[in-house]
């Protein structure tokens, strides 16, 4: 006997691997971000800031390295925000009717899709890290194998929780809207403030005060912080600014993301339970 969510997970992953276009584009997408936007922005930032020497006793990172965790965060944000799209198709033209009429608990549907989404996000994260290092990103400087391993576990945890949370948002939208156009519209509008009112691409210190407040509660900021902490260390300089993360801060960020995921899971579950599909 297989738990329902494993069946849902298996089906989703099977489609992901079977259709090479989805597999290929999902891997190419982050590489293009990093290669085009990343290198372009990094070149400009370096030109404006002119390198700048780091204060003593601190590791100094270039913009590309600073941005790379942000790229991971952004890629996962967008991939999962659009992740509910297949469910919209299942709902309108596919097997969601079969699933809804089955005795499988509704939560298994959400858990299964979340798990497959987390898996895809982790694959993307891995690709960005490897490709970033190829491009000259200096992650995990000065760390030994154990340190790198711990850092990777931290990154996996942050990515997993965040991607599940965002996927639940997109499931919620997919169950509440009926047309692909509506779904597209809502998720695009949602992505804007989350992406730009955060510290993914630039330090939030440079944002207008109101947006700084938004950035503070923005889950993407907490993800970026977590990723930077694990890939760049707790104390470094970049873009002429000093960054200092305490482990307590990072723990709070993680708990914050966990809470965010629970809330979105709850809303997604309610949306599934309330929806009538005939």
């Amino acid at each position, binding site marked *: *006997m*297989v738990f*329902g969510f*494993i*069946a*849902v997970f*298996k*089906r989703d992953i*099977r*489609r992901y691997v*079977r*259709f090479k276009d989805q597999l290929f584009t999902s891997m190419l997408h982050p590489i293009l971000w990093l290669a085009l936007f990343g290198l372009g922005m990094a070149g400009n930032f370096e030109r404006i800031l002119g390198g700048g020497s780091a204060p003593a006793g601190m590791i100094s990172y270039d913009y590309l390295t600073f941005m790379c965790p942000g790229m991971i965060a952004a890629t996962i944000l967008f991939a999962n925000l659009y992740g509910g799209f297949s469910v919209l198709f*299942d709902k309108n033209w*596919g*097997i969601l*009717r*079969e*699933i*809804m*009429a*089955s*005795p*499988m608990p509704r939560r*298994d549907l959400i858990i299964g899709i979340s798990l497959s989404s987390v898996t895809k996000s982790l694959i993307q994260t891995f690709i960005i890290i490897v490709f970033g290092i190829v491009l000259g990103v200096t992650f995990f400087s000065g760390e030994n194998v154990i340190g790198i391993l711990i850092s990777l576990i931290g990154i996996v945890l942050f990515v997993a929780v965040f991607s599940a949370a965002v996927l639940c948002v997109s499931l919620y939208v997919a169950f509440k809207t009926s047309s692909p156009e509506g779904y597209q519209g809502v998720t695009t509008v949602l992505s804007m403030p989350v992406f730009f009112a955060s510290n993914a691409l630039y330090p939030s210190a440079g944002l207008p005060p109101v947006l700084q407040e938004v950035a503070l509660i923005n889950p993407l900021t907490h993800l970026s912080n977590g990723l930077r902490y694990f890939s760049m260390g707790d104390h470094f300089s970049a873009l002429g600014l000093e960054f200092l993360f305490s482990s307590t801060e990072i723990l709070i960020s993680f708990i914050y993301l966990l809470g965010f995921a629970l809330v979105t899971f709850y809303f997604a579950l309610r949306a599934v339970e309330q929806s*009538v*599909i*005939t």
Partner: protein
Amino acid sequence: MSNSVILDVSNFSYAYGDVQAVKDVSFTVKKGEFLSFLGPNGAGKTTVINTLITLLPMQEGTVTIAGHDLRTDQVKVRGSIGIVFQQITLDKDMTVFETLDFHGDIYQMNREDKLNRISELLALVELEEKKDVLVNNLSGGMKRRLEIARGLMTRPQILFLDEPTIGLDPQTRQKTWEYLRMVNQEGTTIFMTTHYMDEADILSDSIALIDHGTIIKRGTPDELKSDLGKDIIYLETSDNNAVSDKIREIPGITGIQPCDGKLLIFSGNDGAQVLPGIIRAADEQGIMVRSVSLKKPTMDDVFMHYTGTEIRD
């Protein structure tokens, strides 16, 4: 409730806002029985079936399926029924095997039972050779057969079929009927909705005529047809009204009613012997007979008789 009753519906009503789709419908289906809901589109058939398979919430009435109350025991009801939906509800990106495997998993079948059942059913619907073919590459008839197999995966106590041959070509329909008859003969109780007279007639043990959200008449196909007499005669004359009073007096005529510019005449005796008398009656009044046809009653005539209209699409 008697043990042999699998589906027991009493005083069931359903409304979409102000629109009353189903009004106070009661019926039962016994173990092994094949019941068809026959009626035009918009009669309320799909509303009934969608509620019974738990996709629509229960409103008025009580429903018991396989001993479980539909209102309080939804999950148990879901576990004991099989469904073939009206529209194709398959993932075109899965193979035939994966489709059934997935179904077995979401119904929590154990692995051995699941794999055995898949081979059994693929043999039954003759899709063994298509086992690893993507659903996308199957013909319409094969997709239907796969859906029937899927509906039977968990050996349901009752199989619900919503317009199972809609959109299929005549040959594929015939073939689908063969499978359904086989499934029923193997002991599966079936509840089917259809707007095809021939389908209901050929397959069902019992037919409920449904129109405007109510059951108008229920009986076996033979009972329903014999209600209309032995033969029926369609007659078209220059004055249908005037001639009908005369015809009514002819011995052996059990009923007469106008329909679509013709007269529908029910004959309790052999129609061929009654026919000359009908022509004579018209002649005596100087009414011209334009056309006349004699036939054995079909479900179309039954429907016409009970609803006063032809089945509308």
